[in-house]
């Protein structure tokens, strides 16, 4: 259930913005934005009514609505089941709920060396017929466990 918080900027579903959108606080966006969105080290949530035609740069990006544009989530990008994204994603961690529509490329750029042991494990599993590869990223809720 959505609750209003004074420390989060809120753009309602009737609001239409054309141009550059930047800020230094978290943003909940449920309206229309065309242009560019840059929140630096803050988080962005695009609500179910959100319609964004812009490149997005934020710390964490959670998408419920429709986006056409490149998404850069410095830490994480999350596509909820109602999300429709046409554009590339660059992030450290991706979470996709089943039902989300995505057309584009996903480029995982980890800040540390955690990816190396995981890749080694997956490659070792390929040589052994019955070993299951470990899942390196968070499994969104509703997705069956890969065990």
């Amino acid at each position, binding site marked *: 259930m959505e609750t209003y918080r004074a420390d989060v900027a809120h753009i309602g579903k009737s609001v239409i913005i054309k141009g550059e959108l930047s800020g230094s606080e978290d943003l909940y966006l449920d309206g229309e934005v065309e242009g560019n969105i840059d929140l630096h080290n803050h988080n962005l949530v695009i609500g179910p009514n959100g319609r964004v035609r812009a490149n997005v740069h934020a710390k964490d990006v959670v998408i419920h609505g429709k986006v056409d544009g490149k998404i850069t989530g410095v830490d994480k990008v999350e596509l909820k089941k109602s999300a429709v994204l046409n554009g590339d994603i660059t992030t450290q961690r991706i979470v996709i*709920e089943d039902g989300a529509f995505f057309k584009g490329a996903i480029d995982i750029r980890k800040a540390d060396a955690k990816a190396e042991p995981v890749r080694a494990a997956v490659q070792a599993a390929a040589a052994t017929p019955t070993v299951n590869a470990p899942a390196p990223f968070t499994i969104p809720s509703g997705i069956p466990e890969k065990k």
Partner: protein
Amino acid sequence: MGFFRNIFGGGAESASSKSEVERVPRRSTGFNQFTRTILRPDGQKILDLGPTSPSNITYLTGLGHKAYNEDVLAEANESRLIIPGPEEGSKTVDVERFLAEDLCYDPETFDAVLMWDVCDYLPEPLVKPVVDRIYQITKPRGAVLAFFHTREAGVEAPYHRYHIKDDNILELQQGPHFKLQRTFQNRHIEGLFHDFNSIKFFLGKENIREVLLLR
């Protein structure tokens, strides 16, 4: 992340009815062979032509690759692509518009492509153009994995999404209702992909032929 929990009621989202559709595991020799071709250094570009699958994206990015996703069947069945056909009252697919808006990548972009059983369900006018486009955007020596129903599967063979469980096992999940358009014989498959350098057939379960191609 407390901000997000407060907005959306806390905790994990509950499963949608779509994600509750059962997934049936199936061992796949073709996919296993495909994975061997992509276990090279990371950073490869892999194109998945099925519906968005978190499992597939997790698997491919877990190998250190860049995962691309384009749901070709969903795109091909969009109403915007339906145009009047040559005969009065008939309809067809706008192939030109499809190729202008979909699968638009530079030549020789991808190291590997997961076609799944797209060719069995595509509208007829799109089959050859899509295969030709896949050839163009695949790198030399790149791999393409494609599945084809055998005649025994029957015209009512349901459409399944393919989720990667590991390098040997796929999970099939009944997906959107797409009608099986055709079944190919081996020689037709060879003709369709004649530009590719090599083609290997593997017999899978549930009346599926698995085909691994190298450009």
